Structures are given as structure tokens and as C-alpha cells.
């Protein structure tokens, strides 16, 4: 058990090292980071001076080492636009993004797991068809279009809910539904197929043959086993949610990391972009380590590997 956790942590350190390299490399895609960072009207003299000051004349690996050292201490440089440390700007907006992603995940789990179970238990019933069709639509619908349609209906036509901003709970409703629908669809389909597979197993038939009634078979025997792939997908879906927040936050003017980074990209404010990408990726990696560790409690077979 302890070796499993240690190995998993070591692996994620390697992954984070890779992540930091890619984040660092983004600036070098065009060849010259000075041209990326400076406004287009900068003179040749400005560029030379800036390059010297930022250490862009040093060997590539030395620069990477300096970047990594800074990143580990939470120093990504100052935001070009706001003048504040980029790390600080991103961390400040983290809670808003976590709130949104958390609410979306909560909605997804509360809707998807019951829907998936009912679909599997009452296979080919009207409920099954409805939930399957809704899941399919949800998986095929672009997030941003859903968001706009929700605004059109609930903010413009009915004027029930606000279309932008953050503050009260009602601000959270439309963005979290928008962000959560795709994940809801994914988890519904996964729960349904997982439950169907488990319900066809011999031990379920044995339990039924022994006279165990329906609810305990579904809840105790089947769901526990079907839960394993669901827990894995939650970790992966968190990546989808953090990434999806970029677009959802833009539509609903939600003051989170996603909106900040889109603005930073438009403003060519690369220190902020780097800090945001790095911190979101780190969050994703850490959550997945936690999910993997939880997983070993659900499925003892994994510890033996």
C-alpha cells in the first residue's frame, strides 16, 4: 500500500516536471520570447536590453532551470498588464473556478448516477430511453452553445436568472449546469453500461437465487462494483471541467482562472498564462493521485499489482 502511494507520487512528480517544461516551452514556440513578450512597436534597442535583463541570452537549459526554480517558489514573474505577480493573480481566482467546477461535478453526480442506475435496472423502459437520449444530446452539444441558449431562455426571455457575474447562489446556477452537462452525460452512460455489466454477473444471479430482494442487490452488490470505473472517470472528468471552465467562465463573465487566462492570452500577458496553465495542470495531477489512492480502498486488487 505504502509503496503504491510512493510510486504514484513519484510518477506524478515526473509528470509535473514535464508539465513545467511544456509551460516554459510555450514562450519559445515562435523562436524568440522577447518578440512574444514585448509590444510590436518595441525598438531593436528595447528588445536587446529586455533580452539581456530577462536572461534570454543564456543557454536554454539554464533558462529552464531558472523558470523551474521560480515556479517551485510560486514565482512566474509579474503580469505584464496588471503589474502584480502572476502567481498571485491566478491563486486569487482559484476559488471561483473550484466553486464552479465543484458545483458542476455535484450536479453531474446527483443526476447521472441515479439516472444510470434506473436506466440499467429498468432497461428498455421509457425512463431508459429518455435518459439515453438526453445523455446522447448532452454529449453532442457544445458547451458554449448550451450556455448561450440557457441565457436566451432564463435571462433574456424569462428573466429568472442572471446571465453574468458571481456572488449569490443564483449566479452559480446557469454556469454550473452549462459546465456540468457534458460530464453528466458521460457519467450517465458509464454508470448504465457498468451496472448492466455487473447485473449480468454470476454473483448477482447467486444473490437473487438466494432470495435477496431487488433493492439490496442493486445498491449493495451491484453498485459497489460498478462504482470503480465511475470513481476513475471522476478524476479524469475533473480535467474536462477545469478545461471547460475556460469557455463557461468566458460566456458567463465568471471571475475565475479560465476567464483570466483567456484575457491574458488576448493581452499577450504570458506570465499569467504560464502560471494559470501550470496551476490548473498541477491541480489535475494532484486530484488524480488522490483518486488513485481512494481507488485502492474500493478495489483491493489494485494494491497487489
Amino acid at each position: 500500500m505504502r509503496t503504491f502511494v510512493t510510486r504514484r507520487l513519484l510518477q506524478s512528480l515526473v509528470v509535473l516536471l514535464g508539465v513545467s517544461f511544456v509551460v516554459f516551452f510555450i514562450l519559445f514556440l515562435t523562436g524568440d520570447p522577447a518578440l512574444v513578450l514585448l509590444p510590436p512597436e518595441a525598438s531593436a534597442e528595447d528588445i536587446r536590453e529586455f533580452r539581456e535583463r530577462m536572461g534570454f541570452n543564456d543557454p536554454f537549459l539554464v533558462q529552464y532551470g531558472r523558470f523551474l526554480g521560480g515556479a517551485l517558489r510560486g514565482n512566474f514573474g509579474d503580469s505584464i498588464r496588471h503589474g502584480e505577480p502572476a502567481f498571485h493573480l491566478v491563486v486569487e481566482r482559484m476559488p471561483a473556478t473550484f466553486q464552479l467546477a465543484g458545483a458542476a461535478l455535484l450536479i453531474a453526480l446527483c443526476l447521472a448516477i441515479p439516472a444510470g442506475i434506473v436506466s440499467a435496472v429498468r432497461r428498455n423502459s421509457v425512463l431508459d430511453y429518455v435518459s439515453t437520449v438526453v445523455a446522447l444530446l448532452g454529449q453532442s452539444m457544445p458547451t458554449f452553445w448550451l450556455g448561450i441558449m440557457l441565457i436566451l431562455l432564463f435571462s433574456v426571455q424569462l428573466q429568472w436568472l442572471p446571465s453574468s457575474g458571481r456572488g449569490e447562489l443564483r449566479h452559480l446556477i446557469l454556469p454550473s449546469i452549462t459546465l456540468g452537462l457534458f460530464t453528466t452525460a458521460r457519467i450517465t452512460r458509464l454508470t448504465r453500461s457498468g451496472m448492466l455489466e455487473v447485473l449480468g454477473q454470476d454473483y448477482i444471479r447467486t444473490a437473487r437465487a438466494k432470495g435477496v430482494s431487488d433493492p439490496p442487490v442493486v445498491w449493495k452488490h451491484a453498485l459497489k462494483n460498478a462504482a470503480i470505473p465511475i470513481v476513475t472517470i471522476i478524476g479524469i472528468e475533473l480535467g474536462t471541467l477545469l478545461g471547460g471552465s475556460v469557455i463557461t467562465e468566458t460566456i458567463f463573465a465568471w471571475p475565475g482562472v479560465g476567464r483570466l487566462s483567456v484575457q491574458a492570452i488576448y493581452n499577450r500577458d504570458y506570465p499569467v498564462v504560464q502560471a494559470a496553465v501550470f496551476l490548473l495542470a498541477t491541480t489535475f495531477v494532484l486530484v488524480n493521485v488522490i483518486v488513485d489512492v481512494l481507488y485502492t480502498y474500493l478495489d483491493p486488487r489494485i494494491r497487489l499489482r
Partner: protein
Amino acid sequence: MSTTARALTLHDELRPARREWTLFVRRLGRRRTALFGAVVVALVVITALAAPWVSPFDPLEQSIGERLKAPGWRDAAGRAHPLGTDHLGRDILARIIYGARPALLVGFAAVVISGVLGMIAGLLAGYFGGRIDDVLMRLADIQLAFPFILLAIAVIGVLGPSLTTIICVIGVSSWVVYARIVRGAALSLREREFVQAAQALGGGDGRILVRHILPNVFTPWLVVATLDMARVIVIESALSFLGLGVQPPAATWGGMLADGRVYISTAWWLATFPGLAILLTVLGINLFGDGLRDTLDPRLKI
């Protein structure tokens, strides 16, 4: 005489393959949802290819006097605009028809790039195992750790948006699904008798990979590619929505949605119809892909 004999043998050789193919098509056709998906996808592809002939208007032709007209509106010449006009007086149906082109082009090209990369990575990781496998799978983890859309917009933000950039960015960063599926299949295939027999007969690794393993991992690969194309089309429209896709005035579904968002309180049709176009296309591909999976490889988990 001899010619007839040769022709006959050839015919016989071809028969089983042909029968398998018709059988497959018939089995796929029996799934009504898959058939529906196939028809939708075919219609979208035909529309995109035949855009200049089926489009009722020029997608770029502006007319300030005809701006923001509701669906069904007729202009002075009596020509109907079935889906209305946008904020520059351009016909929305025409723009939706032309918008299918970048969507399908990016979808197809990016899937080919990521599919080939993923196939190579998966074959190498699964067949050779060991160090290669470790390195490739860590790379996959690193790739997955990035919020995809954020990485894409960061890279496109630096390189500048263009059709090639979008295709390359999506293509290069979407290989992991393919690699994982192909790796899993290759891992079990390399223990199979026919592969070991080929090894015992002195077949080189390259030959075994291409001649024996690749044909057997092709089916799951194809299913992943189909379903991934749906995802790529949504991403293309998201990038266009954020202004990082194919640049205006060219018509893109995402770009039309971005325009429509501005006029949401006065002209609902601007944002509604392009979104429906994306929904229908992606739904069609998803249904077709699900049908393909259920027919070819029902145990495949994607």
C-alpha cells in the same frame, strides 16, 4: 482456357472478404440509430463539398439594409432567407453551409494526425514494453494533465490562428486515446500464438508490427477515430468561438455563435442555428461511432 481458370480462382479468393463486408454493412444497417447517424454525416459531408451549388446566397455578401432579419424574411427581389440574416445582412443558411467546410476539414485532418501518432506510440509501447512503454505512457500522462482547450489557446495565441495551426495543435495533442487503446490491444496480441509463430520463423519486429499486429488493432482504432472526430469538431467550433479559429469573414459555426451572442437579446436566430448545426453533426458522428463500436467490437470501452 487458362485465363478463365485464373479468373475463377481470383473470384473465389475475393468472395469471403466481400461477404464479410456486406455482412458488416448489413449488421450496421440494422441498427437504426447508427443508420440515422450515417445519413446525417453523409448529408453534412455532401453539403460541405457541394456548398457553392446548394447554398442559396453568397456567405460573405453583406447588405446593411437587410441586417438582423428574422427567419423566413423575403428581400425586395422576393428571395427568402429561411434562417434569417446576421448583423451584417449575410444569409445565415449560406454561412452555416459554408461553415461545415472548416469544421469537417479540421475534424478529419486532426484525427488523421493524432490517429497516426497514437497508432505508432501505442504499437511501440504495447509491443516492446519496458523502457519505451514507460516513457510513452508518462508522456501520455503529461499530455492529459493539461486542460486541453487552455493549452490549445495558449499555443494558438503565440503562433497566431490559422487553419494549419489549429489542425496541428489539435492533431498533435490528441494522440493519447489512440495510444492507450492500441497499446492495450498490442499488449495482448504479442502473447498470441500467431505472433509468436511469426517471431519463431524469424520475422523482424517491424514486419510483425505492420503485418500481424496492425491489422488486428485497426478496428478499435477506427472506432476511437470516429468518436474522436466528434470531439475535435466541438473543439474547432470552441476555438472559432473564442476568435482563435479560422479568421473572419470566413464562415465558421463557432464564429457565428460568437457574433450571435452579442445580439442574443434582440435576434435569437443568430446564435441558435449554428449551434444546431454543430449539435446535429456531432450527434450524427456519435451515433455512427457508437453503432460502429457495437458492431465491430462490442466489448471495447471508450
